[in-house]
């Protein structure tokens, strides 16, 4: 943290020392940021007491801004903003399929009034839904009237719900004051480059001042507007997340520079995401065969940026109409037809009571992790391994191997268990029977892991996983993820020490590009 002067001068009215804040947030998130920066290691189970109350209030139940919160709290996006003002080579707005999960895609767009009704319907059904975001399917700030009308309606009817938006940044400087006015305190800007020469390979054109501007000139305008908007937001104390799409051979190395640039302008969190590009999506990158990164390439880039600032690794690259916990999509339950027929009883007290119960669960989880971690004290080893976890949420190992739509990935070392990502997989078990090809898909997705923690697993897949060098662990069913993983890792180190097993490095893994199915059954 060497360039926070701007931040400190930028937030005088709140009296918040941003350097302290960033440090405390890093501790709160428990993300291992060992190294020259002197930030906390991942052992810290810091929470409420370690953060200034106003920052804690902003992140504690925001699943996108806190990795720890994303196990417990849900979000929803309302698709009120269809228009866009730029063209990206990884986006094709024509493609729309309910089985497709990626940004820019929705099944139906909503009016602000329909959106407000939908938020109440979802909030009444899913009490852990705490965040409402507008993420498109175009750019929210290219549709300012619809976007801000939606925020206005929701802030009246459901004042406890946090508002956020994500934007490409082109129109951002024009709307910062309105964003502040509606108490939108989380803004995500997608910044893929700070060098217009790189930008010209990602953005064919922007619509700017009533003209279509192309090439390097377009990218130059875009990057200036993005960075200006970021500075204006952080000056007002609005938390900013920066999303970057990692495009191998185009901006992968350059994203280290982007990371430095956004950090110096006060961004709170950086989310480097893998490019999604399949030919059937019809995007420019999909059609030219531009590949996305492998799991190892993505993690290496995220790791190299982590010394600089907090990295988000739990992003599921969700649709602009997603509903539910990250990693699940319940949007099918809340189509316009269904919500208009729903009798909505929005009870803020019931929601509060439910969330209080969630908080107790969280505290228990953090305590359990801390206790288990203490038993690792004094164990010396350089071994770092990855483990996959099948979970339905709440920070528990509570999903059957065959029902998992994704696996969460934890890095285990003597510093503890650290969340480093997730892998989508096809449903391995459909209709109660396993299928060889699907198991191979799972193995490819978690091939860099030594173990997979599950609530339950059949004998056959367990054997096949063992053949692939992955140990299926089911003795921690329904227990806390981190506590269990640390306990298992301790035993692993012990076995290596006694010579019972030989530690070997694992290979790379694939990031799945296909569709996320909305229904798990």
């Amino acid at each position, binding site marked *: 943290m060497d360039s926070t002067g701007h931040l400190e001068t930028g937030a005088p009215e709140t009296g918040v020392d941003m350097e302290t804040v960033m440090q405390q947030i890093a501790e709160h998130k428990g993300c291992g940021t060992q190294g020259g920066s002197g930030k906390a290691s991942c052992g810290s189970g810091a929470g409420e007491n370690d953060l200034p109350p106003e920052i804690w209030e902003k992140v504690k139940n925001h699943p996108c801004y806190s990795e720890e919160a994303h196990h417990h709290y849900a979000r929803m996006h309302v698709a009120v903003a269809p228009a866009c003002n730029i063209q990206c080579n990884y986006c094709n*707005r024509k493609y729309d399929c309910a089985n497709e999960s990626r940004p820019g895609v929705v099944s139906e767009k909503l009016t602000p009034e329909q959106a407000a009704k939908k938020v109440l319907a979802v909030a009444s059904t899913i009490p852990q839904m705490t965040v409402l975001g507008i993420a498109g399917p175009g750019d929210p700030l290219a549709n300012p009237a619809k976007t801000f009308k939606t925020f206005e309606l929701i802030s009246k009817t459901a004042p406890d719900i946090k508002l956020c938006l994500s934007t490409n940044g082109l129109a951002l400087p024009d709307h910062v004051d309105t964003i502040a006015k509606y108490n939108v305190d989380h803004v995500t800007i997608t910044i893929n480059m700070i060098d217009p020469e790189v930008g010209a390979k990602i953005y064919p054109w922007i619509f700017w001042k009533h003209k279509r501007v192309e090439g390097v000139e377009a990218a130059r305008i875009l990057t200036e507007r993005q960075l200006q908007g970021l500075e204006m937001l952080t000056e007002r104390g609005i938390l900013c997340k920066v999303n970057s799409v990692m495009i191998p051979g185009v901006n992968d190395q350059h994203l280290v520079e982007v990371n430095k640039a956004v950090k110096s302008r006060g961004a709170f969190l950086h989310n480097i995401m893998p490019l999604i590009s399949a030919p059937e999506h019809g995007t420019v990158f999909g059609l030219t065969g531009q590949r996305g990164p492998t799991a190892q390439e993505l993690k290496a880039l995220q790791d190299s940026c982590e010394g600089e600032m907090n990295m988000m690794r739990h992003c599921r690259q969700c649709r602009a109409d997603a509903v539910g916990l990250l990693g699940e999509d319940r949007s099918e339950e809340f189509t316009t037809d269904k919500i208009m027929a729903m009798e909505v009883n929005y009870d803020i007290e019931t929601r509060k009571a439910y969330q209080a119960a969630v908080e107790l669960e969280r505290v228990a989880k953090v305590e359990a992790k801390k206790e288990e971690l203490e038993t690792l004290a004094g164990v010396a080893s350089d071994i770092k391994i990855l483990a996959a976890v099948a979970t339905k949420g709440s920070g528990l190992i509570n999903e059957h191997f065959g029902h998992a739509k994704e696996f969460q990935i934890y890095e285990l070392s003597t510093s503890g268990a650290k969340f480093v990502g997730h892998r989508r997989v096809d449903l391995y078990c459909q209709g109660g029977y396993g299928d060889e090809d699907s198991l191979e898909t799972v193995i490819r997705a978690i091939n860099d892991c030594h173990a997979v923690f599950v609530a339950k697993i059949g004998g056959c897949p367990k054997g096949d996983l063992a053949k692939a060098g992955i140990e299926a662990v089911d003795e921690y069913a329904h227990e806390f993820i981190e506590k269990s993983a640390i306990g298992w890792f301790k035993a692993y180190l012990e076995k290596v020490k006694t010579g019972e097993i030989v530690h070997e490095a694992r290979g790379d893994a694939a990031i799945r590009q296909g569709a996320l199915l909305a229904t798990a059954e």
Partner: protein
Amino acid sequence: MAYKIVSSQCTSCSACEAECPNMAISEKGGTFIIDPAKCTECIGHFDTPQCVAVCPVDETCVVDKNYPRYQAP
């Protein structure tokens, strides 16, 4: 010549509607249409037709040759 929207190409994103200086664009039957009586091809307003410039799908906002070229009054 007014402009028209090729409905099979239209993603219904509404970007053109807000940019049209003549309020000639509206939604109809799930996609957008241009009222040829109102379209001035943006002559007198902008250098390029706004719907063409902002549309995310190429060859979607095109010249409708059924209408004579717009004459500024």
